[in-house]
């Protein structure tokens, strides 16, 4: 036996195992820290720092300290930072390479904190995406694009209306264009008819018919002469009739065209009125135009919030929406060169690769501490059959009576995900909040009290987001230094507003996005601005009329004058026609 077995080897093996354990005890935390930093940096696309990691085996737990996740958009700031994250890990699934975190405690979670030095931003490798619908990601059909019209710069017609002469100077006037066109067309018609007249039977030709007739009549003295002359006269009459028909056709064509020109000339006299109406609409503001000012005022801020929410959703979605593996056939995962393929088989008690069962969150905002919980975060929600639920609750915070958020991301049916978010903010004391209202018109809420209710629902490719708000005890200050006209007027009116309510709704179905924003402000602003607008609009109309008349008048007169050039042409055609008819009537032999 001793010839086969080396008993000292057992001791050597035990020593080796002890060395492994020592290695673990001394370096495991550091190795976990390095691995987590590397993996998280790759996932986020920006530097992730972990000050320390402490891993224990019995019970299996991990504690991370000083976690900082760089914001890829603003590397000088953290996206999130946490003082400590402690977690209890299920050991048996870990042996099967599944990370099941039974409990997690996140303490001192902060958002947007400044970093001591800017974090590195790494370029993420573009991975091929699963087949996605053109309006969103593969399975969900959720919002793919923000409501573009909301995000466009808003501009208002000025209330201090511009000078009428300068408007007429820079605007293209349809009446002027029409007058010039009519004039040109008349000139072309004149040339055409002058050419055509040359081709029509003229006086010379008709006189020639008369001479031919006289000659036939002289030669019809005898009986044989009479018989011969009758035939010739018949031929001559046929020629004259043909020419008369040609002339009649030309006259009809001419009259038709002349009538068209007359109609255009008559219409041209109404063109300046149409120009006036158009410019009035453009440079003044109707009551209808004032009916949805709140959309203009709040639209861009709402757009920004929507874009931020959508960006976060798309960041999170790929990690949460992994369909469950089918049980029927082994699944092949994409091979990494030189590392082989992982062939996955059906599991008798399937578990996701990652599952955070329950986390307690302590979020620190400037207003104070908010407590919350996060449950069932998994890479395969369909497998665990539970949606991810986030709950946040804060009471008696600084400048805020209460905050409540309940979010539910439900990917349990990957083809039909349903999500919902309800948020309520009560007694939010606003101080120095600037709303980027209209272009170059920042409105500063110096103080005020706000109650907000937000609910978002996404299901079956349709997203509905509703925000209701009530603002009271407001003290607004609008910086009207860079604006004029209506924006300035709005700024002045806003400063007198002390409370108002608003309601915003975004509905997205595929690429179609509809937005609706209504507010008490519409009524207040409309009433205040409309009166000021009316007098100015009437004055502008008068000035515009005069300016248009001055600019277009000569061209109109010229066009009207040109219509007269067609008169002699018609007279000439009629004269030739009369000559032909007279000639035809006189074609008689004296017997």
């Amino acid at each position, binding site marked *: 036996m001793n*010839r*086969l*077995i*080396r*008993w000292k*080897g*057992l001791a*050597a*093996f035990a020593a*080796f195992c002890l060395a492994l354990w020592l290695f673990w005890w001394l370096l495991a935390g550091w190795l976990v820290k390095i691995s987590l930093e590397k993996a998280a940096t790759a996932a986020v696309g920006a530097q992730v720092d972990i000050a320390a990691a402490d891993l224990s085996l019995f019970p299996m737990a991990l504690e991370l300290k000083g976690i900082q996740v760089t914001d890829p958009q603003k590397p000088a700031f953290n996206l999130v930072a946490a003082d400590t994250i402690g977690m209890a890990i299920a050991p*048996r699934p870990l*042996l*099967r*390479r599944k990370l099941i975190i039974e409990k997690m405690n996140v303490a001192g979670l902060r958002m947007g904190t400044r970093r001591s030095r800017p974090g590195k931003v790494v370029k993420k490798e573009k991975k091929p995406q699963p087949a996605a619908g053109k309006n969103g990601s593969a399975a969900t059909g959720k919002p793919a694009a923000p409501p573009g019209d909301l995000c466009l710069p808003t501009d208002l017609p000025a209330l201090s209306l511009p000078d009428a002469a300068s408007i007429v100077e820079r605007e293209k006037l349809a009446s002027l264009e029409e007058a010039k066109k009519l004039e040109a067309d008349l000139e072309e018609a004149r040339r055409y008819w002058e050419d055509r007249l040359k081709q029509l039977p003229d006086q010379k030709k008709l006189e020639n018919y008369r001479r031919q007739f006289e000659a036939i009549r002289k030669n019809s003295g005898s009986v044989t002469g009479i018989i011969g002359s009758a035939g010739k006269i018949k031929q001559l009459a046929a020629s004259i009739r043909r020419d008369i028909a040609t002339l009649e056709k030309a006259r009809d064509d001419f009259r038709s065209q002349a009538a068209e020109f007359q109609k255009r000339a008559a219409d041209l006299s109404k063109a300046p009125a149409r120009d006036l109406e158009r410019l009035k609409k453009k440079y003044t503001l109707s009551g209808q135009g004032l009916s949805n000012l709140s959309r203009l005022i709040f639209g861009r801020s709402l757009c920004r919030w929507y874009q931020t929410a959508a960006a976060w959703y798309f960041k999170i979605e790929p990690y949460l929406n992994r369909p469950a593996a089918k049980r029927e056939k*082994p699944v*092949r995962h994409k*091979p990494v060169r*030189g*590392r*082989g*393929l*992982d*062939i*996955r*088989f*059906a*599991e*008798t*008690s399937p578990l996701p690769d990652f599952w955070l069962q329950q986390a307690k969150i302590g979020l620190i905002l400037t207003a104070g501490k908010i407590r919350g919980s996060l449950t069932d975060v998994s890479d395969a929600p369909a497998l665990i059959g539970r949606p991810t639920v986030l709950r946040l609750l804060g009471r008696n915070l600084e400048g805020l009576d209460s905050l409540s958020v309940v979010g539910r991301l439900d990917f349990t049916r990957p083809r039909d995900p349903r999500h919902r978010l309800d948020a309520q903010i009560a007694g939010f004391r606003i101080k120095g909040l600037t709303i980027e209202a209209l272009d170059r018109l920042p409105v500063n809420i110096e103080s005020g009290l706000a109650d907000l209710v937000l609910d978002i629902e996404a299901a079956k490719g349709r997203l509905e987001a509703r925000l209701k708000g009530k603002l009271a005890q407001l003290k607004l200050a609008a910086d009207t230094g860079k604006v004029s006209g209506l924006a300035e007027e709005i700024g002045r009116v806003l400063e007198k507003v002390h409370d108002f309510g608003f309601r915003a709704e975004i509905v997205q179905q595929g690429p179609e996005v509809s937005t609706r924003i209504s507010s008490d402000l519409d009524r207040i602003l409309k009433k205040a601005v409309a009166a000021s607008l009316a007098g100015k609009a009437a004055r502008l109309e008068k000035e515009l009329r005069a300016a248009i008349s001055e600019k277009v008048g000569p061209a109109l007169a010229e066009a009207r004058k040109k219509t007269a050039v067609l008169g002699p042409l018609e007279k000439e055609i009629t004269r030739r026609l009369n000559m032909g008819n007279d000639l035809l009537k006189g074609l008689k032999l004296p017997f």
Partner: protein
Amino acid sequence: MLEALAKIIKVLNSETDPWQISLAVCLAMVIGFSPLASPHNLLVLLAVLVLRVNLSTFLVAWPLFSALAFALDPLFHRVGLALLTAGGLLDFWTALYNTTWFRLDRLYNTVVMGSLAVALAAFMPLFLLTNWLVRRYRVHIRDWIAKLPLAQTIKASKIFAVYKNISNLGGTA
């Protein structure tokens, strides 16, 4: 490389049992072909230490088989893929897949499975072949080399005596 060759020759020339050398080569093949971090390699290591295999041979053969494994990677992948996707073995693998050991050892990976399968399949033939080669060497080649004038000159030199003393400090098996 020369040092490794010298070690092999030294072992071959020693009185070590051929099976000790052969088993060392075979176990080195298993550990060399498999990815280093595979948990089953702990068992191989236990076998190396507890069984009276020749450690020098094992330590020389291990890196050689590791280097060979890089070249044989595509073969391991193909063998592993063929085994893991064989229709008749689906139930067998599914049952194994649901065991902790199979998952921990990543035997569902084509390279891990393929390398282990190739190593196990080659184990016995390699053992017998190495045994036969060691015996043949000792009977036919060792004496022939020893009789060469160059070998005798080296053996007679003082340098060789010093080398022998130093190398004997490391022991054999």
